[in-house]
């Protein structure tokens, strides 16, 4: 083998019966000491939220895409005036607000499970999640602020 990473150097192996090679253990494994049940329903509520918000988001997002990109002239009609006209109505304000919150929380929770599944070290997992939560909170707050304080008479 050209890329020989084994213990063999010049035909002499480092490992024998009394000195076996280390086995490759999976990153995290279940032992007797694995903590049992935190007693919270958080994972269940998160799982339920994904299902329910998903159903609502299908309606909200497809409706949003239709209005923005397909109906009534398509994407070319979008401009400051179009957005200002839509956000003058509480109906579209609510629509966009609900869509923003549900989509951000749905996406963030999905990414949280991906990080939980794939990050191997506790430190990596912690910091990736902190980055995710910060980005989520920032986007939700900024979006909410814009929807409520939008001023069509901007100079």
């Amino acid at each position, binding site marked *: 083998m050209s890329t020989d990473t084994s213990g063999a150097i010049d035909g002499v*192996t480092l*490992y024998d019966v009394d000195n076996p*090679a280390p*086995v490759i253990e999976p990153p*995290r494994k*279940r032992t007797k000491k694995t903590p049992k*049940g935190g007693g919270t329903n958080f*994972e269940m509520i998160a799982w339920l939220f994904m299902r329910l918000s998903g159903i609502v988001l299908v309606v909200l997002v497809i409706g949003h895409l239709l209005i923005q990109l397909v109906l009534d002239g398509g994407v070319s009609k979008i401009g400051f005036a179009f957005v200002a006209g839509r956000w003058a109505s509480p109906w579209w304000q609510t629509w966009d607000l609900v869509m923003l919150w549900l989509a951000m929380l749905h996406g963030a929770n999905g990414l949280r499970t991906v990080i939980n*599944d794939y990050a191997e070290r506790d430190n990596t997992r912690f910091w990736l999640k902190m980055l995710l939560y910060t980005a989520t909170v920032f986007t939700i707050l900024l979006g909410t602020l814009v929807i409520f304080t939008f001023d069509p008479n901007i100079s």
Partner: protein
Amino acid sequence: MATPVMDKAQATATADYITATFRIRRFNPEESDAVIWEDFQITIDPKERVLDALHKIKWDTDGTLTFRRSCAHGICGSDAMRINGRNRLACKTLIKDINPDKPITVEPIKGLTVLKDLVVDMEPFFQAFRDVMPFLVTEGNEPTRERLQSAEDRERFDDTTKCILCAACTSSCPVFWNDGQYFGPAAIVNAHRFIFDSRDEAGEQRLEILNDKDGVWRCRTTFNCTDACPRGIEVTKAIQEVKRALITRRF
């Protein structure tokens, strides 16, 4: 009744033999820390099983080949391995069914520590099994006769009684590969077997154990476990039933 003639049968017996290549993933920590693929060419009847081929290699070619098997008839669950990239029991897989024209790859099941060749450390798997309390729990005095159950009540959990704990499902699960803290399909199947048993009284307790962050909610419904199960248990369905039981009992 006339005695059957033997000579014709013997003449055709070896005519069906084919030459098949078995590409086996070898690891021997007493020699090297490197994992290598080793090819073995053997002449064998394609109607034989992969386990017979492994025996032939071990007995006739290379005695150091290491694998587990006990009953060799698909009941004990010792010889689950990854054959041509799929988890199966070597004793239930016929060579003719997995295209012997190409090399047949044989690997240990994934997600568990490989100790030597095809032998893995099953301890984390059995720890998850023990953690769901896979035994009958009842209250009150012991009855003086059998604990009777209607046929319908028995039917409710019939599918999950078939588990042989071979770990083919758990070691096919991508969540388990990345995080061995997850209970895994086999443990959930064995919890399901008691949760839905009308004679058992610790269903709530088992549901609470599986409500953990490493419990049923980590299941991503990829159906790998259902495909892998050599006993044909609808594993993913059982996991979903446990999820539903958790939700409907509290809402």
